[in-house]
């Protein structure tokens, strides 16, 4: 039987990918960011997940305004890195797990989560930067990845509560997959940041750390937090944090914290990172 063993959460700032791709990871500006992931890279190398269900958002790369799915699951064999205007990131093609992805789509839809099924999609920095942070720069990613894209560009995104419940449903679905697989769920995006307008550059350490505390110990309370609070307190793009609740919903009510990291800044953004294991 497949099982979910752990969750990872991380920001997915594009400048982090650019720093790695351009050999700047050792520079004083970037060194503290990557230092926060050193232990995590060792941990994931030991854990050897077979499949990562990677929750992220597309940034007007695969989805324009023609089609805006709230929850989309990637069921293809492979997903190429997207050209976001500077050429595709020089990272390996992402290998999917179509059997598990289709199983999830079927189970989730029958469990009343109306997923959009995606059979062809390029994946942008929202998906590839977390892979780079956790796996470094290998010739091929060491596990299969199921992209789960969440709309957080067109307001309103799904509620925190809906995301949390989707995580719970993902767990139920994974646990009915017959193959013996070690599955992790990753939630990405955030933390506080605003990329637009006169309030650009907003950072709210207090909000971010309270979010991390509650995500770990009282996720149902965090799931009840309204969009307006995220937008006001964590910035117009800080609302990406609702995606972390999908990861958290897929884990046990009580979890152990393997890693917790917070750093300001990476470009315009506060970087947050967690690794949580089922006890």
């Amino acid at each position: 039987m497949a099982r979910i063993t752990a969750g990872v959460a991380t920001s997915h700032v594009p400048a982090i990918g650019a720093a790695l791709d351009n050999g700047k990871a050792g520079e004083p500006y970037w060194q503290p960011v990557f230092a926060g992931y050193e232990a995590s890279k060792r941990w994931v190398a030991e854990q050897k997940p077979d499949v990562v269900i990677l929750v992220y958002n597309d940034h007007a790369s695969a989805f324009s305004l023609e089609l805006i799915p709230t929850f989309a699951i990637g069921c293809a064999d492979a997903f190429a890195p997207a050209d976001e205007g500077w050429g595709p990131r020089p990272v390996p093609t992402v290998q999917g797990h179509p059997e598990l992805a289709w199983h999830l789509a079927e189970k989730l839809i029958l469990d009343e989560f109306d997923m959009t099924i995606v059979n062809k999609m390029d994946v942008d920095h929202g998906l590839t930067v977390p892979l780079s942070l956790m796996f470094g720069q290998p010739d091929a990613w060491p596990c299969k990845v199921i992209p789960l894209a969440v709309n957080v560009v067109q307001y309103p995104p799904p509620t925190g509560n809906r995301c949390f419940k989707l995580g719970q449903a993902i767990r139920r679905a994974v646990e009915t997959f017959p193959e013996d697989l070690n599955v992790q769920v990753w939630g990405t995006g955030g933390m506080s940041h605003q990329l637009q307008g006169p309030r650009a550059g907003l950072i709210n350490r207090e909000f971010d750390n309270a979010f991390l505390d509650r995500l770990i110990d009282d996720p149902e309370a965090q799931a009840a937090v309204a969009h307006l609070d995220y937008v006001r307190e964590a910035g117009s793009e800080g609302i990406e944090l609702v995606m972390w609740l999908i990861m958290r919903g897929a884990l046990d009510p009580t979890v152990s914290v393997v890693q917790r990291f917070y750093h300001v800044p990476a470009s315009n953004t506060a970087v947050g990172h967690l690794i949580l294991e089922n006890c």
Partner: protein
Amino acid sequence: MTEKPYHDIPGTVLFDAEQSRKGFHLNQFCMSLMKADNRAAFKADERAYLDGWPMTEAQKQAVLARDWNGMIALGGNIYFTSKIAATDGLSFRQIAATMSGVSEPEYAEMMLTGGRSIEGNRSKKDKL
């Protein structure tokens, strides 16, 4: 414009239904810049390229003037308008500095010292 609770947040335009409807063609024009050939055509004659899109004159003027806040006000979304920045060879940080009315070094310094504080930036009422 229907008043929404988030209209109270200073210096912020949420990309909601109203903005999305207003900005559809502006954003789809931006999306076209994902292709290298389109970027070249835009750079060669910006006005002619923009005239190929059913955008308002105000939207076209905002693009030509690289008025980043103006584009947002007219329905642009930052993930789309940033494709114009990419075409210009500008970084996200450079346009963020412009949108918040400071030089890039000043903006970078603000980020290094912890970013823009939330204090005084929660509500337009804080600004009074």
